[in-house]
């Protein structure tokens, strides 16, 4: 029984990190209909920022979050202005963005490999190998901290979207670009802002990921598969959906890993993707896209 609880808690912490990784992706899709295959590469950029700040200046990766967010946000703004803005609103935009974002991911992947080589890296702050014990339950500090920080960032995002004028405008724009323009919302600005916000969230997730997983430039291929499955399962564009999917699947994956075999655990994400596409293609919280 304790063992099951143990596995669930570990899955939960990891799930919250996955949730943070997926929120930016689903936000960008929801507002702009961009299928951002470059999202995980932004996460990696955030991870490298945190890694080098730690190695060079000894800055704790959790404290490096704002810096990683700013770096990725600026990078996002540049990429958006260069690649995505001019075609926004064209009819096959989503389809176009699949190729555009894939190309962006390849370019950034190549750039990262050029500078940082294909070495596995992991940030190792003092708490990375520590653990708490609550009764017999074992809580690795790194996982616990990353889970809690992810949770607070997701809550902050949710509050922003619910209660700030710009947040409601972002939701309004994701419902309908035209209607948003009609009430006087500057849709171009909202799109740019959402893209930057999504990339900044990727940067935050990157800082946390840097001490939870080991990473190297081509790692993003592995992540995009998992993240897309979360986003599709939750319903494209639904943040609540992506977060729920991340937590549920991650807990399931760690249960499968513990009771079947660790190599089966990744399968959970893809099996869930198959099942949801068969029985409810719009996802748990999604609506059919017209």
């Amino acid at each position, binding site marked *: 029984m304790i063992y099951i609880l143990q596995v669930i808690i570990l899955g939960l912490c990891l799930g919250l990190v996955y949730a943070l990784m997926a929120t930016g992706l689903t936000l960008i899709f929801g507002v702009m209909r961009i299928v951002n295959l470059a999202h995980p590469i932004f996460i990696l950029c955030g991870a490298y920022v945190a890694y080098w700040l730690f190695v060079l200046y000894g800055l704790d990766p959790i404290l490096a979050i704002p810096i990683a967010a700013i770096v990725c946000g600026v990078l996002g703004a540049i990429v958006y202005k260069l690649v995505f803005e001019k075609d926004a609103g064209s009819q096959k935009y989503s389809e176009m963005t699949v190729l555009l974002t894939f190309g962006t991911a390849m370019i950034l992947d190549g750039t990262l490999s050029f500078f940082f080589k294909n070495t596995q890296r992991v940030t190792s702050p003092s708490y990375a190998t520590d653990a708490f014990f609550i009764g017999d339950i074992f809580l690795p500090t790194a996982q616990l901290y990353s889970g809690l920080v992810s949770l607070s960032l997701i809550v902050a995002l949710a509050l922003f979207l619910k209660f700030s*004028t710009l947040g*409601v*405008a972002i*939701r*309004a724009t994701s*419902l*309908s670009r*035209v*209607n*948003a*323009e*009609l*009430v*006087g*919302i*500057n*849709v*171009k600005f909202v799109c740019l802002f959402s893209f930057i916000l999504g990339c900044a969230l990727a940067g935050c997730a990157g800082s946390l990921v840097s001490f939870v997983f080991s990473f190297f430039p081509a790692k993003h291929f592995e992540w995009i598969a998992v993240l897309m499955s979360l986003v599709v399962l939750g319903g494209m564009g639904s943040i609540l959906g992506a977060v729920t999917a991340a937590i549920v699947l991650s807990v399931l994956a760690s249960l499968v890993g513990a009771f079947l075999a660790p190599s089966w655990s990744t399968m959970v994400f893809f099996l869930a993707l198959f099942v949801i596409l068969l029985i409810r293609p719009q996802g748990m919280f999604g609506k059919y896209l017209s």
Partner: protein
Amino acid sequence: MNDVILKLNNVTAGYQNGPDILKSVDLTLKKGEIKCIIGPNGAGKSTILKAIAGILRPRNGNVLFNDRDLVGLEAYEIMRQGICFLPQDRALFDTLNVSENLWMAGYTLHDKKELKLRIEEVLTVFPILKKRLSQYAGTMSGGEQQQLIFARAIILKPQIMLIDEPSLGLAPSIVEQAFKHIEEIALTGVSILLVEQNARRGLSSSHTGVVMDLGQVVFEKDAKEVLNDERIQELYLGKRKSK
């Protein structure tokens, strides 16, 4: 005449690469006037409204609002000038609640205290909405949605409202209510340009009637004259010759 606030000169417009839907249209709108555009399907009635609102960029001609040309501005910029467009499909944010919809209607208002006051004010005009504040706009009845649309439109105190088919999909009693609201709004000095499939109903609430066909204005007259004109009755209002 200096009470003309909107003037279309020679406006030509069409969709994407398609043919011209509007062909050199001239039209004026006076302060406080309700003007109803009628005509058969495909005459370009809705297109006029879209061209003014900036959803569709005119290919030629100009749209003067208080002597300032609107052609080339983005839809949200035109809206910020004081022209409010109410499209056929309602344009509510279905999964935002009523209070968020009203909040977004005042997006361009930087003084948030003022916005709060105006929302209070609007809620006294449409008391039903007060009970629905936390309900999703998409789950309300057609009549309630219609009220929310008017509520949203008057929050910014626009000078011009462009209304496309206010009666579409509404029960007859709700249609009456909608036109009552339109008349009341016009009494506060707002000019209203209306497109209505139910031409008889639209004209009877209007001051002037414009008949359009094939992308051009056929003629413009006092609304009552249009209603009583034999030829128009035959062509557009569905009266049989034998009667």
